[in-house]
């Protein structure tokens, strides 16, 4: 400490510095402690921010992956409906519906995502209607395909937005 003082105040005699340190070691230690605390706080804040960003990025990546899977499964619905494979239509529609509701629930009350949540809820509603229609005897494949296309448009819009947000890092 005396060395540090002699470096910062070159004209001061060494004995005066030692005397000052001896008399004020408590205060000097407190100031030093304060600097260390500020430094630790600064590092911890940075680490917390980095951790938060990593969590957000991970969530974004998961949502994008889930939406991509939902898109793929939704396209299967169209194919299975054309072949009148109602069990598979039912299964895929349920999977897409669950994915959409899970994403909406994970997003919580965030108002910024309201439009995307509305779109996913509409996809979930379309999927439910597809399940209902596929369970009927003589299910209407045309109305199922139309609902699937409606859902596809909405899923694409949400996926596009999710990709954009992930790329911008928000």
């Amino acid at each position: 400490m005396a060395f540090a003082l002699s470096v910062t105040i070159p004209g001061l005699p060494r004995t005066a510095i030692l005397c000052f340190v001896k008399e004020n070691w408590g205060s000097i230690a407190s100031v030093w402690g304060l600097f260390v605390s500020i430094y630790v706080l600064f590092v911890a804040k940075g680490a917390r921010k980095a951790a938060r960003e990593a969590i957000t990025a991970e969530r974004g990546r998961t949502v994008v992956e889930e939406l991509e899977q939902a898109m793929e499964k939704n396209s299967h619905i169209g194919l299975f409906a054309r072949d009148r494979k109602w069990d598979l239509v039912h299964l895929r529609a349920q999977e897409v519906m669950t994915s959409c509701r899970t994403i909406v629930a994970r997003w919580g009350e965030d108002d910024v995502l309201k439009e995307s949540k509305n779109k996913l809820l509409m996809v979930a509603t379309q999927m439910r209607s597809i399940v209902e229609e596929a369970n009927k005897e003589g299910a209407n494949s045309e109305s199922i395909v139309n609902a699937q296309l409606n859902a596809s448009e909405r899923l694409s819009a949400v996926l596009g937005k999710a990709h954009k947000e992930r790329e911008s890092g928000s």
Partner: protein
Amino acid sequence: MTNVSDVEFVGKVLEATQRGRIDWQKTAVEAQYASTFGGKWTVLIDRGTDHRGNETFWLSLQNAEGETVLRIEQDSRLSGLFELARRYALKVNEAMADFLKELES
């Protein structure tokens, strides 16, 4: 918490539909139209037939989990609401305007 009656609820949905503020969409189920709001609500209007073969209409509200929290059947305005929702979802007004434009040209 505000107390909203079923009558009021139907009135508000009808008014918003008349103003074109509800984006009704056709679903895979015949004669069913739906719209979503606030990132958590889904409103549906359905038409069906009762055991005597009479037309019936019902308006339902679902939460984000897909649970039906409200179902209204006994309201004479529901048939009008259904027709407005159908016209909006199928873009009937645009179709008629385009048809008339073609007719006049």
